[in-house]
């Protein structure tokens, strides 16, 4: 049941191997996954097989009980309880007898007379028992029985020195007078012997004792039948325990309740005493039921169980076993990994009471570990971790593995820890209770990094030339988790040319301060401040179709930015802040330019293009307020994005800066992902076809420098055109529709897009759209296919009527 998450560099995705299934497969999964050593395991969420089996005190045969449990625990130690270990095979022929105590311990109570109290113990080990068999049997060597063929031999008549080979195991129901057919029957789960194994007489006797004490049988016997080839055919003839039929079912949660203590019934009690004893017992049980809490089991399952009871008539051990399996299956399917049916009570009355320990959490422990895995004092404040935990992991709630996974994901998204384990552990002091343990390994607080790279930059005519191959590099440092409150400072300096770093040096220095309202306040606001610079090619100064290459204009920005981001959900957020920046426009030779240029037909340059800056000097300084609200409820349905995303962005000039810029620049983007078919949400199911509708409106009132004008055309505007090929304008409207059809494990899509300047190109100073002979509007349509991260698409430019194939990274919407 251990599941392990590998932290991928992408974050978010935590593959989980193995979940709470029924116990056998779960323990098998544990033994399979545990021994992978030194793997890049980041998170291990293991749920140990908790509620230590309830040791029934209603036991009459104490001696048997003791031995039984020693064996159960011995093997349990191997597989079920401590899931991080691989499964060490118990030494062959241990005290547990054949196969170390066998799968199912059913602590039985003499059925009919005893006041209807029935305990069972679940030791999880059927799977392990099987694994052990060959070893436990001592290999292929066995002794011939040395008896005439085809005679029935009582177990006691067998020789204690011989190792018998059991070639066949049969169950014979005495009451019905038939053999139990099929090996899938629950009986076969109970017996740890299996055909082909080699056992000694002592082992067989042990097995018989186990069967007799497991509670399923009123009476059970083992007989051997000699076979001509020297092997034995084993027949277990039994009378099943049964109780009177019931027509009601009740499921109660007995977690955290003390175990009922039952007095031994004295053999020489008078009838009156007996009667009184039973009455007292019944009263006690009623009180127990009253004190128990309601359980989570829903009505449909409840009804299903009732149906089973009704169909079956008399309540038999096998029926109870099936009920137990059904109830437990529901719990485990729903992620209640620690839930256990511990007991059936009130038998021999009209009502069957199923006692469940659901796995109530009594304690939540957060521990830090050092590199060696020792518990140490962490730097991170606990409140930072605690606020990431779903409240379902707090004491008083029932442990659910999904809540554990969520905790794992949330903590992982803090990016503070290299290893995270969420571990439910049985509480020794409180039976049936769970302690949730969270073990965290912190990342180094400070880190510095230097990386170098060679980049080939396009030279003349777009071809890389040898002279333009430059060594580049990045120096970055990071100071994380300052004061243990996840505050961080990070800085980086990048140059694409280390030989001449002053040419192209970009830097970033950022301070992040989460929990502005305090760690204990549920409001999640983060303050960020950063100094930055950037250099971008302006798409405003781009030629239309058929225009010779336009001399590029580079926009250099240096500035300071401070904002507060409030996260509402994982995706929806509202941020607002202040930006102060200096914008410098430069031409190809890195000298400041004030106007765009165009190559004239005669070959000269016309330098009287649109002004590049508001001030007209090539350098603008301005301060403005910025706000952005994002509403995003998209989610993945079988791998396809479905939902709605609205973004409103606003830059409000404050009249501070060169030429006192006062403006209101706003953009509203609405995107809808509409599934065209209802599909079942499950792993491996095909995603629905999705229709994506997208609208983008942008506008600006007031001072609009050319570098802030909206540009039309490009992979994120109107596909099929180059960046800015359609125009630069004051108001913009883009409409797009895309139909995605899943094919295999990817999708193909068809799209149509339109972008329009709404006639506002002339309202940009210098009318760059017209100056560079652009259309100001345009449509495109095409088809494409998604290949991993890459989109390959064929888009037809509607203005020119020609199509072209494009390869793009990432999503358009």
């Amino acid at each position, binding site marked *: 049941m251990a599941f392990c998450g590998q932290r991928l560099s992408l974050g978010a995705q935590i593959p989980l191997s193995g979940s709470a299934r029924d116990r056998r497969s779960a323990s098998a999964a544990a033994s399979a996954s545990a021994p992978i050593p030194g793997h890049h395991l980041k998170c291990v969420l293991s749920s140990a097989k908790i509620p230590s089996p309830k040791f029934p005190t209603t036991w009459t045969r104490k001696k048997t009980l003791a031995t039984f449990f020693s064996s159960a625990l011995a093997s349990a130690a191997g597989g079920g309880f401590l899931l991080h270990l691989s499964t060490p095979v118990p030494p062959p022929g241990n005290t547990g007898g054949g196969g170390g105590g066998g799968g199912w311990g059913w602590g039985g109570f003499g059925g009919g007379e005893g006041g209807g109290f029935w305990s069972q113990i679940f030791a999880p080990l059927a799977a392990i028992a099987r694994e052990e068999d060959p070893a436990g049997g001592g290999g292929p060597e066995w002794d011939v029985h040395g008896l005439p063929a085809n005679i029935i031999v009582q177990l006691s008549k067998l020789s204690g020195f011989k190792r018998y080979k059991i070639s066949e195991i049969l169950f014979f129901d005495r009451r019905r007078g038939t053999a139990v057919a099929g090996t899938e029957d629950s009986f076969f789960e109970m017996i740890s012997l299996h055909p082909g194994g080699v056992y000694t007489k002592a082992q067989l006797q042990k097995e018989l004792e186990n069967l007799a004490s497991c509670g399923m049988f009123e009476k059970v016997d083992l007989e051997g039948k000699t076979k001509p080839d020297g092997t034995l055919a084993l027949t277990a003839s039994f009378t099943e325990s049964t109780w009177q039929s019931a027509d009601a079912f009740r499921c109660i949660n007995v977690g955290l309740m003390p175990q009922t203590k039952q007095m031994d019934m004295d053999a020489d009690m008078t009838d009156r005493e007996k009667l009184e004893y039973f009455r007292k017992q019944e009263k006690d049980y009623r009180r127990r039921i009253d004190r128990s809490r309601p359980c989570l089991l829903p009505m449909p399952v409840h009804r299903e169980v009732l149906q089973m009871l009704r169909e079956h008539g008399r309540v038999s051990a096998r029926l109870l076993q099936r009920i137990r399996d059904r109830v437990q299956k529901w719990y485990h399917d729903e992620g209640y990994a620690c839930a256990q049916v511990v007991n059936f009570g009130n038998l021999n009355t009209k009502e069957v009471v199923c006692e469940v320990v659901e796995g109530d959490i009594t304690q939540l422990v957060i521990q830090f570990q050092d590199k060696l895995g020792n518990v140490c004092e962490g730097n991170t404040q606990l409140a930072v971790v605690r606020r990431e935990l779903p409240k379902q992991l707090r004491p008083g709630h*029932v442990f659910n593995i999904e809540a554990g996974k969520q905790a794992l994901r949330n903590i992982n998204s803090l990016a503070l820890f290299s290893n995270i384990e969420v571990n439910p552990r049985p509480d020794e002091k409180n039976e049936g209770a769970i302690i949730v343990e969270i073990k965290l390994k912190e990342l180094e607080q400070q880190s510095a990094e230097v990386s170098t790279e060679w980049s080939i930059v396009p030279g003349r005519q777009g071809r890389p030339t040898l002279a333009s191959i430059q060594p580049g590099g990045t120096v970055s440092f990071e100071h994380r988790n300052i004061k243990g409150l996840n505050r961080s400072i990070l800085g980086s300096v990048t140059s694409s040319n280390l030989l001449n770093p002053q040419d192209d040096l970009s830097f970033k220095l950022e301070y992040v301060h989460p929990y502005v309202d305090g760690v204990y306040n549920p409001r999640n606001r983060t303050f960020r401040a950063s100094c930055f610079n950037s250099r971008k090619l302006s798409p405003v100064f781009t030629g239309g179709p058929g225009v010779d290459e336009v001399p590029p204009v580079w926009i250099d920005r240096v500035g300071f930015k401070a904002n507060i981001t409030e996260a509402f959900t994982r995706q929806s957020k509202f941020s607002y802040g202040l930006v102060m920046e200096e914008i410098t426009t430069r031409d190809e030779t890195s000298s400041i330019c004030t106007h765009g240029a165009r190559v*004239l037909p005669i070959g000269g340059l016309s330098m009287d293009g649109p002004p590049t800056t508001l001030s007209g000097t090539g350098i603008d300084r301005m301060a403005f307020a910025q706000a952005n609200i994002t509403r995003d409820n998209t989610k993945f349905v079988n791998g396809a994005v479905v939902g709605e995303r609205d973004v409103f962005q606003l830059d409000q000039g404050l009249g501070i800066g060169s030429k006192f810029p006062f403006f209101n620049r706003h953009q509203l983007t609405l995107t809808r992902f509409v599934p065209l078919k209802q599909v079942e949400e499950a792993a491996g199911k095909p995603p629905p076809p999705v229709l994506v509708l997208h609208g983008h409106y942008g506008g600006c009132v007031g001072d609009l420098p050319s570098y802030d004008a909206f540009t039309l055309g490009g992979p994120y505007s109107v596909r099929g055109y180059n960046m800015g090929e359609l125009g630069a304008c004051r108001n913009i409207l883009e409409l797009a529709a895309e139909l995605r059809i899943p094919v295999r494990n990817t999708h193909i899509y068809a799209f149509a897009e339109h972008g329009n300047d709404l006639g506002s190109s002339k309202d940009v100073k210098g009318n760059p759209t017209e100056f560079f002979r652009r259309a100001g509007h345009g449509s495109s349509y095409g088809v494409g296919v998604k290949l991993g991260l890459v989109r390959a698409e064929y888009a037809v430019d509607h203005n020119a009527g020609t199509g072209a194939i494009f390869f793009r990274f990432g999503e358009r919407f």
Partner: protein
Amino acid sequence: MASQLAREWLGIQQFPAATQSKLHELLGKLKQENVSTLTILVMGKGGVGKSSTVNSILGERVAAVSAFQSEGLRPMMCSRTRAGFTLNIIDTPGLVEGGYVNEQALEIIKRFLLNKTIDVLLYVDRLDAYRVDSLDKQVIKAITDTFGKRIWWRALVVLTHAQLSPPDGLNYNDFFAKRSEALLKYIRLGANIKKQALQESVTPVVLVENSGRCKTNENGEKILPDGTPWIPNLVEVLTVVIANGSKPITVDQKLIDGPNPNARGKLFIPLLLAFQYFFVVKPIQKAIKQDMAKESKPLWELRDVGLANRNF
């Protein structure tokens, strides 16, 4: 401009006597209407005969003319006075270069015209250019963008090379009517003038023939194929346009820069901001809250908060 002092209009004396008297009569008429200065702006595509027209009107060779290449790269103003009346004619370089409107030339013209008042625009094109195309529209649009729509109420369309034999099967007047109608249509399109608006005052079309081989009548006046002497005719139409009640266009910095889009609506920004806050940001915030409430929680979470009621 200041360097170019208005000279006496000597060229008028070279005109035939009939023309001279007609011109004097017209100028006198203008003077009566208190118009003592007339500024004529001549614009058009390259090589249509702008400079030649200027020379013809003045009767002097003021603008260099060449048949094979454009001569005037800069605008040029000629001022002539005659009997207290000043005539300014501004010749401009061709507006077309390389198949596009030459913004540079337009820019130079604009700067040249700064602080001048334009009484009449002569939009010059050739009569023998059979077709009109989008380039004409662009040129007209460029002129409109520079001086505003109003200019077309103060404009004359001048068609040069009037002395031609029309293509087969058309008589001269039909051809002229068709050609001028097509051009006017493009002016309406390019200047974005509504049809009715233009019908009120149709931009007049005047024919011109600058060639030395131009026929003359018995008085020695240059005449058109239909027999009208064209110089007096042109000046007459000019006076009609001036008298049509529209105002002359004064070119100032504001006109050259065009309306400043950056200044438009600035006052409404606070209002706009309030609108955005209350009608965009708030609804989105509300929608986010709804999303949070509607978010489908996993069953285990619902059971935990006691919403299951044992139904699932």
